[in-house]
């Protein structure tokens, strides 16, 4: 192949990957999987959407985000509140408020009766929270481990807050028993598949967004900031702004993933969004390859599937696998499984040249 064709291939290989993923997930998977398995795949897809954002922030931006569960939860709870109100019907309050409280609805629930507002909130809430926190952290040049610990503390605080507010957010049980999704009956298999397809569509959109971001000047600046923040500063850019944009985009993607998770899983609870859940999201990204284009999404799908398969086979040992996965992947394959071909190639090259 001529160099020109090769560079064209390099540029558009990600698009090819997205296309293959689209065919597999939108055409092949619904044809071969049972509705139950397809629904599970939908759940993994939600994690994959969040993982794409983590790949952007952590893989390309070097910011270890250990609290993406917070944003996943913001989107998830925003969507769940809307679904809950839809299930309750106009003028009524969600069932758990009658059960645990006096049947009065807190004021912040009211706007979520509106579908468009909910969609707006799913994007705007995480963006606002991430902007405030990111601004406070990045502008003061707090980074590295400090940043990671602060984001994880955020996840712990968020989950504690949810558990403590049983009258407002359902507490430990979370929100569940949704019947409708924007007017479509969720018990109908056709509608369930539609929700699945929307989720896959959103994953593909997120992939297209990061593809464009990685190709842009911003993407180059982001990688430069990861590798040599001070040099970027000396060149006249403000690394805080660059990191802030990546952090906010990652937060919004996590939120979109969470928003689709609620109708697919049928529940969102503090255990879906706490520090452990956030770490689970990281696991997929680490496995797939944090800085690779498709690595985070594929890794998240794999880890999601692995969690189901292993929990079914060994109910108590799943945690060992997850723990071992972290140790082995980070220790031996810091760039993820997606890096294996390159590793093999360099090893072979060294052999042949030696």
């Amino acid at each position, binding site marked *: 192949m001529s160099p020109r064709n090769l560079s064209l291939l390099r540029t558009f290989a990600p698009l090819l990957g997205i296309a293959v993923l689209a065919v597999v997930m939108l055409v092949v998977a619904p044809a071969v999987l049972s509705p139950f398995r397809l629904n599970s795949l939908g759940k993994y897809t939600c994690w994959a959407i969040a993982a794409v954002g983590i790949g952007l922030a952590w893989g390309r931006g070097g910011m270890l985000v250990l609290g993406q569960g917070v944003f996943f939860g913001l989107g998830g709870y925003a969507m769940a509140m809307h679904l809950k109100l839809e299930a309750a019907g106009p003028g009524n309050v969600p069932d758990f408020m009658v059960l645990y409280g006096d049947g009065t609805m807190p004021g912040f629930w009211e706007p979520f009766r509106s579908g468009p507002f909910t969609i707006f909130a799913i994007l705007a809430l995480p963006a606002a929270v991430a902007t405030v926190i990111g601004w406070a952290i990045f502008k003061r040049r707090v980074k590295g481990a400090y940043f990671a610990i602060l984001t994880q503390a955020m996840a712990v605080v968020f989950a504690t807050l949810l558990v403590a507010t049983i009258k407002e957010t359902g507490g430990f049980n979370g929100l569940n028993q949704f019947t409708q999704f924007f007017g479509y009956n969720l018990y109908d298999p056709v509608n369930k598949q539609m929700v699945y397809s929307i989720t896959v569509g959103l994953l593909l959109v997120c992939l297209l967004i990061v593809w464009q971001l990685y190709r842009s000047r911003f993407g180059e600046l982001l990688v430069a900031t990861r590798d040599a923040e001070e040099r970027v500063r000396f060149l006249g850019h403000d690394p805080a702004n660059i990191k802030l944009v990546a952090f906010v985009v990652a937060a919004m993607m996590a939120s979109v993933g969470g928003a689709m998770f609620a109708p697919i899983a049928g529940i969102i609870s503090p255990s879906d969004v706490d520090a452990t859940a956030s770490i689970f999201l990281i696991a997929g990204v680490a496995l797939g390859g944090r800085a690779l284009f498709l690595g985070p999404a594929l890794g998240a799908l794999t880890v999601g599937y692995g969690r189901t398969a292993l929990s079914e086979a060994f109910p108590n040992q799943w945690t060992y696998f997850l*723990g071992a996965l972290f140790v082995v992947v980070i220790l031996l394959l810091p760039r993820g499984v997606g890096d294996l071909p390159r590793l093999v190639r360099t090893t072979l090259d060294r052999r042949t040249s030696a």
Partner: protein
Amino acid sequence: MDAFTTPLLAGTASGALLLIAALGLSLTFGQMGVINMAHGEFLMVGAYTAYVTQQVVTNADLSILIALPVAFVVAGLLGLLLEVAVISWMYRRPLDTLLVTVGVSLVLQQLAKDIFGAQGDPVVGPGWLEGTIPVFGYNWPLRQIFTVVLAVGALAALAALLKYTSFGRQIRATVQNRDLAETMGVSTRVVDRITFFVGSGLAGLGGVAVSLISGTNPNLGRAYIISAFLVVVAGGLGQLKGTVIAAFAVGVVTAFFADWTSAAMAQVATFALVVLFLQLRPQGLFTVRTRGLT
């Protein structure tokens, strides 16, 4: 008066626990840049050591005294094992140690669940720790005072070790300038290992104190690790005094907020305060001054 002294004294006790947990973290973080997320599990190991000791030595008055040194050694050895087996391979990637140790902490939690059950076990307190002492109208439980005494004792021992022994000088040299220390003949590898042993052992001591207050629990470490890290972040690296002030500040502030609002709101407030505090002092309270850029 009561509304003031109760949170103050109870907060001092929880601050003392945070201090024991944070001392080890601050040592390893400050010296090696290693973020050990499994540190909380060393607390848990200490608590279970107290429990197991009690099964062997049934005299509760004695068993706690025996458990203290045993927990120090058990947790310390575990930390040493972690350092040798995993962390020593990745000193060039400090941020990644965070994730690896997350994996280790998951494994340790599940191990504790499988060995001792998910429920957790009570540890019988010794008779000489039953009862309370009235302080400004608040009946301060002796167990909480024991925690404070233990923390202050551990702090004093550590400070003396750092200040007066040659090993302490080697640690301080390594923290301040690793390359130069190496040039002067300090084996930084050995220093790192012993530091890890001491830091993890301190967590084991803290675990014994925790077991007296809340018994054992496989998830016990999780409750402390994040607060302990916030203490380290707010206190700054490389010096003990920052950690000490931050630990008691976090403990007392959280107790006051919990008294005024609820335990959950107290966590939110403490987190917000730490982030706000970092606006004023991004490096934490005290830090070793360098002319380096980062």
